[in-house]
């Protein structure tokens, strides 16, 4: 693997070497490495591009890394990945896409991820987006994530995109069954002329299903962000949506949270706030000896942590 590829893998999957557990690495539209374990099987789809990831019931403490990297200009990649997370298992899944585009053509990766998190399973899913390269070619990522959280299952989805991606349209749809829980944390930083849109719908179907959506974003320069988090309560359930954005320069941020209750015992809350960095915060850090610029970076870093 060359330096660029290694860096992309490090950025999107924290990989410094080949991972210990199961993995599948996709580069420029082709699979370039795979490892299965006794409990985790990764299979290439036969009808369309993509993989099936099957985690046996009761699998504990294992991880799956499925990074995608694009190093050539002009690649348009589209994959369908299915995750079947067996009953009672506990796993960490690290996905993510890194694009290095030094050419003039658009490079794009659209992933459709379909998760079934079976009864009592616990999954932590991390998806990082990263882009780099000096070329004029656009770096585009449009992920679609469909999540089914079965009875008593717990899912934590961490979606991160800090700089480098010119355009992203993220769509997330989730259905939560009895006693199921879904936590989505989204962290986003856009700059220059980047555009990011995140559309989420979480349906709380089962009794005592819960969800929490936490979105933290920073919009710099001339970038634009749009958030549509929606929670629909169909049963006795709890849902909390929190959108928090720091706006800078000439950026535009829109947050349109929606909560809809179809049951008298649905407890749904949404909060949305957009504002610049408080002057007081910068002054406080400056009064501790930080320069204005370092103070600002410190505040943003904390906010997006």
């Amino acid at each position: 693997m060359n330096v660029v590829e290694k860096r992309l893998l490090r950025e999107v999957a924290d990989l410094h070497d080949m991972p210990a557990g199961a993995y599948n690495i996709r580069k420029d539209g082709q699979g370039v490495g795979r490892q299965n374990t006794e409990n985790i099987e990764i299979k290439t789809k036969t009808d369309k591009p993509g993989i099936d990831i099957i985690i046996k019931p009761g699998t504990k403490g294992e991880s799956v890394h499925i990074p995608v990297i694009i190093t050539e200009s002009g690649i348009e990649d589209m994959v369908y990945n299915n995750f079947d997370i067996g009953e009672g298992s506990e796993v960490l899944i690290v996905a993510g896409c890194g694009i290095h585009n030094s050419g003039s053509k658009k490079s794009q990766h659209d992933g459709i991820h379909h998760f079934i998190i079976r009864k009592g399973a616990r999954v932590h899913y991390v998806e990082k987006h990263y882009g780099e390269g000096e070329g004029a070619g656009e770096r585009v990522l449009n992920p679609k994530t469909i999540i089914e959280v079965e009875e008593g299952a717990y899912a934590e989805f961490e979606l991160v995109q800090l700089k480098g991606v010119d355009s992203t349209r993220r769509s997330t749809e989730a259905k939560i069954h009895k006693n199921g829980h879904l936590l989505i944390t989204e962290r986003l930083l856009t700059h220059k002329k980047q555009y990011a849109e995140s559309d989420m719908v979480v349906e709380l179907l089962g009794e005592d299903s819960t969800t929490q959506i936490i979105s933290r974003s920073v919009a710099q320069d001339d970038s634009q962000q749009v958030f549509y988090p929606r929670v629909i309560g169909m049963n006795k359930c709890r849902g909390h949506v929190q959108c928090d954005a720091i706006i800078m320069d000439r950026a535009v941020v829109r947050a349109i949270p929606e909560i809809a209750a179809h049951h008298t015992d649905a407890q749904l809350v949404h909060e949305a706030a957009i504002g610049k960095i408080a002057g007081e915060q910068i002054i406080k850090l400056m009064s501790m000896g930080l320069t204005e610029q370092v103070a600002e970076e410190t505040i943003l870093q904390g906010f997006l942590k």
Partner: protein
Amino acid sequence: MLELQNITYLGEDNTPILKEVNLVLEDKKFYVITGPNGGGKSTLAKLIMGIYQPSSGKILMDGEDITELSVTQRALRGIGFAFQQPPRFKGITVGQLLQLSNKAEIYGELCNYLLDVGLCPKDYMNREVNTSLSGGELKRIEIATLLSRKLKIALFDEPEAGIDLWSFSRLIDTFRNIHSRNGQTTVIISHQEKILELADEVILIADGQIQQKGEKDKLLASILQGCDCSMDCLERTGEADECR
């Protein structure tokens, strides 16, 4: 030594908030600034820290004119300020804030400054400085960030506000200890008798001016006896709290 020469500060609409203030703060002395709300105490502290720029006048530190220096530059010269209303920081922990304030000391040592303000480090080092902290907790953390630094001049703006009685007596000890330990000039803006008693000198500010400055024994008697803020009191009917 810090010297304010003819400092005037005009607020919005050019209303004078501080008028022709002259003040000398000597090295290693303990000062308490007191006076009615709106008198200009916080404004004075912010002018010293460089958060506000005076409309006219000069600020000298050890003979050097620091009037044009930024907040950062003044911080690096050893001026520190604990805000009356400290800001909160989403995602930044108490431990990180202490570390930003004192880069030299190792993380583990920083815990001690929390003990100094009556907070258990185990409970607080990893907490975020966000809205989950109460006003009193936030104030104490603010004080701790100042205690952790080696300062020439430490300014505290109403540190006692929102702090319960038990912690308050502990805080008094801390202020006494830290003052002698660090050999710094301490300036506390306060209305509390117990804090006034710590002072070498008390400065009374009202109506944008220094009304009195002197040794605490002489001043305390007159301050505690009667209210010098006739303007403030006349506007009210009956017994105002400040005028007991």
